[in-house]
């Protein structure tokens, strides 16, 4: 839907992390019961575990997808020296299924924003074929580049993306 691309542009996702694309697929991300919409607030404690990611589509089609989760505002949105911080990579997700059916290249790390309000972007790429052993991933999570990763693995432009905000919860619980 073109509307969702506009929210990504407004939120700075397209520009900072991704290039302009037309959404070709849809996927849903859920943390506990809460569905992630563009720009919504998720607490780090609620996002500590992997979300349920489901790619909508026909389960029998042979398309495989790659999911990448990054944080472009590490360590702080005013000084993103470590842009982007890699949180999660899953490859070979079959269409119509959820992310547990894929192969996790980089283990999931929950949001832990030290300061400020960070954006966490989940981008979905369509693969040409199954990723064999060609994917090489750096050991460090800092200074990751989604564009470089997509170019290296011939993923092209993303087919879907969603992002949410998260900030450090104060020690004293606010009502």
């Amino acid at each position, binding site marked *: 839907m073109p509307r969702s691309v506009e929210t990504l542009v407004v939120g*700075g996702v397209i520009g900072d992390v991704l290039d302009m694309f037309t959404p070709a697929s849809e996927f849903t991300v859920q943390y506990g019961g809460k569905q992630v919409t563009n720009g919504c607030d998720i607490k780090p404690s609620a996002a500590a575990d992997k979300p349920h990611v489901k790619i909508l589509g026909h389960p029998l089609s042979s398309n495989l997808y790659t999911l990448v989760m990054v944080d472009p505002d590490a360590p702080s*949105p005013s000084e993103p020296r470590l842009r982007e911080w890699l949180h999660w990579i899953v490859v070979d997700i079959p269409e119509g299924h959820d992310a547990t059916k894929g192969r996790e290249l980089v283990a999931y790390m929950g949001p832990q924003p030290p300061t400020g*309000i960070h954006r966490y972007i989940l981008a979905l790429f369509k693969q040409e074929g199954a990723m064999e052993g060609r994917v090489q991933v750096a050991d460090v999570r800092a200074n990751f580049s989604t564009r470089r990763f997509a170019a290296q693995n011939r993923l092209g432009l993303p087919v879907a993306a969603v992002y949410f905000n998260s900030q450090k919860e104060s020690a004293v619980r606010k009502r």
Partner: protein
Amino acid sequence: MPMAMAMPVTTDCGSGSRWSMVSLKSALPPLASSIKLPCRRRTPPPRTRSPQLVRSFSALSPVNPLHSLGFSDMSSFGQNFTIIDNGCRFFAMRHGRRVPKLNRPPDQRRALLRGLTTQLLKHGRIKTTRARASAVRKYVDKMITLAKDGSLHKRRQALGFIYEKQIVHALFAEVPDRYGKRNGGYTRIIRTLPRRGDNAPMAYIELV
């Protein structure tokens, strides 16, 4: 104004005899001089209107039963004169006024905006109400413009506005790289869901 206070004490005969023009004019304070209504950019009141109104009031006074009873005190009568007669145009509507007041007196307003710009420059992205986010844009842009200039005088001006001096020094160090090519519009506002406690419309404001 001894004459003014002495007049209503007498009996309630025909009001025309008591309210003579000379005694009225001498009793009242000089018109249209001391009363200032909050009107900006309006022309000063034309002085020529005041004598006409005095005449009209003297004509109206027999009609008003309160005057004939003698209960009307001079102060309310005088006040009627000042509100209508001042000539300074006083509107009940807010047409064209662009300063956001943020439901605060001026000193608190300034402190709020200083605090918000300090926090925005410190954290890069903050979540606040839409009215505040919209109001703080101007001040953040001003601070970044000061930093773009970079001279000592501008640095001291920024130090006088932002509460933490580390932030000012960091700002002056990084703004030329970060915003060197951008002309204005250094912030972005993203509207978001209302706050749970009072349903206030919220927004994220971030440095572009």
